[in-house]
């Protein structure tokens, strides 16, 4: 058992490929073979056309910061803070993901909605890697 203090994702059959890929530091999303759209969070049915004919595809890991908050009173024991940046990123492929923006000072003056970001994986335990995002072109 890890002493990691925040909730860790427990996969369901429909989300397991996402978390397995994250562990390999790959961002993959379900894509609908019928309507061609990616979606997130992973479901067993496409939320655009309800088709069950889905395919897991690796995506670019690039997007833009859609919105964010700097959390000062957050989840107790959360490893990134407080303060930390809770963010929503819109991927180039369309879907939005809740994530943490890392590699910035957790201050609204250092963060800009619309800024280009890229995925970076945090190995929070031996079994789980979380998809975080950082400013694009960062180290």
């Amino acid at each position, binding site marked *: 058992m890890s002493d990691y203090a925040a909730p860790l994702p427990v996969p369901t059959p429909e989300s397991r490929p996402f978390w397995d890929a994250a562990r390999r530091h790959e961002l993959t999303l379900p894509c609908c073979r019928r309507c061609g759209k990616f979606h997130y969070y992973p479901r067993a049915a496409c939320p655009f056309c309800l088709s069950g004919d889905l395919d897991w595809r690796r995506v670019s890991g690039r997007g833009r910061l859609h*919105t964010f908050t700097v959390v000062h*009173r957050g989840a107790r024991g959360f490893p990134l803070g407080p303060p930390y940046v809770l963010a929503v990123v819109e991927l180039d492929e369309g879907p939005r*993901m809740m994530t943490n923006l890392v590699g910035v000072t957790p201050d*609204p003056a250092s963060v800009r909605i619309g800024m280009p970001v890229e995925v970076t994986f945090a190995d929070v335990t031996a079994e789980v890697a979380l998809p975080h995002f950082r400013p694009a072109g960062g180290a």
Partner: protein
Amino acid sequence: MSRELRRMRGRVAIVGAGESDEMGKLPHKSAFALHAESARNALADAGLVKDDVDAVFSAGLWMASETAEYMGIRPRYVDGTQIGGCSFIAHVQHAMAAIEAGVCEVALITHGESGASRVGMPGTRFGPDSTRLQFEAPFGLAGPPTGYALAAARHMHEFGTTSEQLAELAVATRKWAQLNPRAAMRDPLTVADVLASRMISWPLHLLDCCLVTDAGGAVVVTSAERARDLRQKPVYVLGTGEASTHVMVSQMPDFARWEAARMSAERAFAMAGVTHADVDVAEFYDAFTIVPIMGLEATGFCKEGEGGAFVSGGRTAPGGDFPMNTNGGGLSYTHSGMYGMFALVEAVRQLRGECGPRQVKDARIAVCHGLGGMFSAAATLLAGTEAP
């Protein structure tokens, strides 16, 4: 569609409204106790007794039938629709439909929540493999303030809404609370006080956030025909709407626009056949200062992006030209966790002219607009003193 809806307006009325005997921090009362005393007060207000009730509507983390069991009611019609804090406003619409269809006659809608003391409250409904615990919680989404901050930040980015404008709403609402002896927060409040209060989740300060209390409320709905023989002046249901677009904040279709509110209000106004200018008093769910601002935009009381300017300068305060949240709102009156019931009760009291120093003069039409989840759902009621 609109003609079918209009057939319903004024066919049912709210004939009883009540709240728990006390509210605030009540470690000696369970959530169900708050349901029951609110129901007792609402029925007494209506001049009805428990055995008159044939339909129970309730929302919480328990079944509506559990609420009925606690009160010893054996309803023939049960509705446990749970779409968040506006559920009770949606229940009015459901009660209207059920009464009109002839499947029930006297609908009791109750709320009770031990939001602060957590007495007799169920545990979480989110398992470790729920979508929320997989795709939000690992990133530190920590309760409502962090979620609402995501919308507030986007609204500021798109429209230039300011923290001062958010604070203006809190200040105007506090002025109403100062006229309400039951309000929890009655000290004078300034914009500077709000901005100086502790940052919870930027851009939301502590005083941008609602209270957390123990409280309950209930209303009774019946047909307009039966209402005329009851104790109180009927408050007629003129228009209703509800909508749901998502549950998790990360799934919000547009972080700067409250889509469910637009859908819900459009339906309520179409049914009622009244205009925004006809509304005398407004009760808008205010879990956070950003919520009524986005609500006023989405329901058409102001243009998109203009909500911040709309609430500034005391427009919604006592003496302003848009009296809103006249009990002091969730920000300063009470907020048990599902404020929609208290908005509903206050709308009824304003239309009956019972509000004393905070009474809006000649209030004939009220709008009561509720929030569910993370801008996830909305329910709108237009109510009036006269049946069309």
